[in-house]
């Protein structure tokens, strides 16, 4: 909900519409050009401009007499705060007929000294926002100077002294001053329009920016709340998976164990057919166990519970060991398995068991997606500088001549439970966890994993691993959720 009242909802004052400094400059220019003082007041009597000219010495002399001071204060009060009406000594100005319609609202206020003021209201959209006071000036039609109202203020008033002073005051017909005043009024209207436009647009722009900001903050808050809820649900899901996988594994291990005992004849001899059946139970049990282990791995990674144990290891031994465990599958499928390994390899640091799992996962995939008669190769490079890591490292390449992966799927295949073909009629089994585990473990070592493939012509997975992971200690693999948190307090 929007808060606060907009500037569009309230009346704008004269001061808000005029830039006081530049307005004063304009008034000063006017005063110098026409030699008549100008005062501008807002509707509350606040002064926006006050430029005097010519009358200072004369008024100062009059002001030096107590009665002069009293009458002067009353006159100034009349022009500044008195009603904008034909009362309290104000009368209509004497004008040429053509000026009368435009000079609507203009008043003449005579001063007891014989000088005069013209007062005109500042009208804006039907409101009176203030007034402009012109003067004092010496009206041309004044026959007798000094009038009795001036000389009577004191017996000490010296006409001979006052006359040269009053000569400095602008002498003009009332109509001339009125014309100047109307001209000033037009200029003021233009300045007000420009000022109002700028004031309103600036204010509304600020209001709009603040309001957009408020809206964005509210939206962010909602998104943050939703994100927190989702993260919590995700954590619960991972924890649930970890528990369930663990609970599934325990009885499954017993099933496999007891089947093995049966097959080995520990409970008495079995005939050929019975042994076949029991072996099938064992094989399927093993497959199921692998799947459950993968789920357990990924759920532990996602729950942030996996620690890598770094220790010196032999990368050649790692590859050879993985190849050995793949042999039965390779033979059964009927694909060729080549290895290109360097003759010598220095010791590197890593989590041997996890890296072995990485290589086995990649090789298992390669064999799985390569048809009979195809070829799978694993390559280990020597240690050299790796631009990807900006550190010394080595690469392990797993290539196959299998079905390949469409280019638009390269990013997605590393997501948990993702499969290129997820239809119910798909050709290849699996839970879609192998590559997600590969990626987590490789990145846990500070390495990177990349894929290149041409559909129908095979795939190549490249692991780039550092000789020494950034952290020498155990590393806790963080869940693969990308989120940027606020920086910590610094001061």
């Amino acid at each position, binding site marked *: 909900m*929007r808060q606060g*009242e*907009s500037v*569009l909802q309230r009346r704008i004052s004269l001061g808000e519409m005029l830039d006081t400094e530049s307005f004063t400059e304009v008034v000063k220019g006017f005063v110098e050009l026409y030699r008549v003082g100008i005062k501008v007041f807002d509707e509350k009597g606040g002064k926006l401009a006050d430029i005097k000219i010519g009358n200072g010495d004369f008024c100062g002399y009059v002001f030096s007499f107590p009665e002069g001071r009293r009458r002067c204060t009353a006159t100034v009060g009349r022009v500044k705060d008195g009603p904008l009406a034909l009362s309290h000594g104000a009368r209509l100005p004497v004008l040429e007929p053509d000026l009368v319609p435009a000079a609507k609202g203009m008043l003449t206020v005579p001063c007891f000294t014989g000088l005069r003021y013209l007062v005109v209201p500042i009208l804006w*959209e039907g409101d009176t926002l203030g007034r402009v006071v012109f003067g004092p000036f010496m009206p041309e039609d004044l026959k007798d100077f000094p009038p009795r109202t001036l000389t009577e203020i004191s017996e000490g008033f010296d006409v001979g002294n006052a006359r040269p002073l009053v000569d400095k005051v602008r002498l003009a017909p009332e109509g001339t001053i009125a014309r100047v005043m109307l001209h000033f009024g037009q200029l003021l209207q233009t300045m007000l*329009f420009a000022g109002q436009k700028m004031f309103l647009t600036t204010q509304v722009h600020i*209001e*709009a920016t603040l*309001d957009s900001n408020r*809206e964005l903050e509210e939206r962010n808050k909602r998104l943050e709340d939703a994100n927190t809820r989702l993260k919590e649900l995700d954590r619960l899901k991972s924890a649930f998976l970890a528990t369930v996988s663990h609970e599934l594994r325990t009885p499954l291990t017993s099933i496999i164990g007891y089947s093995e005992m049966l097959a080995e004849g520990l409970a008495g001899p079995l005939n050929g057919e019975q042994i076949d059946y029991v072996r099938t139970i064992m094989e399927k049990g093993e497959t199921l166990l692998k799947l459950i282990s993968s789920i357990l791995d990924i759920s532990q990674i996602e729950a942030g519970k996996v620690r890598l144990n770094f220790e010196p290891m032999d990368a050649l031994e790692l590859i050879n060991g993985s190849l050995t465990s793949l042999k039965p599958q390779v033979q059964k499928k009927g694909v060729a398995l080549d290895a290109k390994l360097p003759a010598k390899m220095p010791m590197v640091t890593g989590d041997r068991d996890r890296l072995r799992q990485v290589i086995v996962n990649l090789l298992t995939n390669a064999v799985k997606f390569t048809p009979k008669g195809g070829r799978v190769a694993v390559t280990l490079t020597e240690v050299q500088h790796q631009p990807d890591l900006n550190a010394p490292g080595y690469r392990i390449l797993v290539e196959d001549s299998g079905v390949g992966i469409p280019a638009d799927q390269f990013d997605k295949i590393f997501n948990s439970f993702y499969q290129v073909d997820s239809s119910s009629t798909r050709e290849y089994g699996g839970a879609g966890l192998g590559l997600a585990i590969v990626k987590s473990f490789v990145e846990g070592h500070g390495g990177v994993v990349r894929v290149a493939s041409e559909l129908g012509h095979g795939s190549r997975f490249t692991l780039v691993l550092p000789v020494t992971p950034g952290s020498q200690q155990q590393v806790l693999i963080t869940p693969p959720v990308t989120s940027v948190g606020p920086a910590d307090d610094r001061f």
Partner: protein
Amino acid sequence: MQLNHAQRELTVKIVYYGPGLSGKTTNLQMVHQRTSPDVRGRLLTVETHDDRTLFFDLLPVFFSTANGFKVKVKLFTVPGQVIHNATRRIVLQGADAVAFIADSRRAAGQENNAYWKNLVENMKENNLDPAQVPIVIQYNKRDLPDTKTDAEIEETRKKGREPVVGAIAIRGVGVLETLYTVLQSAYRSLEARAHLSKTIGLTEKEFLTQVFANIDVSGTELEKVLPPRAPGART
């Protein structure tokens, strides 16, 4: 509505709402053209180089009632471009009635609907109850090809309770009729809420007659509705 008893002043706010380029500013320009300078302010417009309203337009029209109450009618437009939603909300604040300027071409239907929803949403954000703030729909650009037929517009009218006015704002057709309808709706709603006829002695007839007393309604439907003007009245 802002009613200031101390200053004896009533301000009524009308907002022209609608999609970009539907003719909101054109409506205000036409009202401005036909209104005597004695009773209106200047038309304040902030446009971008492509002649589209950037912030809003504002045209004030004012008069005094027989009881000496000053009445100001402030006509605003909102910016049509999607990105200026915050400005639309600000301009809409405190509106007494809304003139929704729709483009009557068939192709503009989706855009009209989107801005209608936006209006409803922003009214809610501003705490304006649609039951109390009347809306008048102007179907503008009736002269263009692909415009909806009268029968189709009649269908639209039947779907809601908002009055519908056809217009070709660029030629001044329907502009004053829309203004009249939206002011009438605004008055009736304010009368129901604030009893203007009792509290300040302002009747619907005086309100509408006074607003239009200094607007040149010749050649519009309003000639039949409003009392004939004194010969030689300034326009």
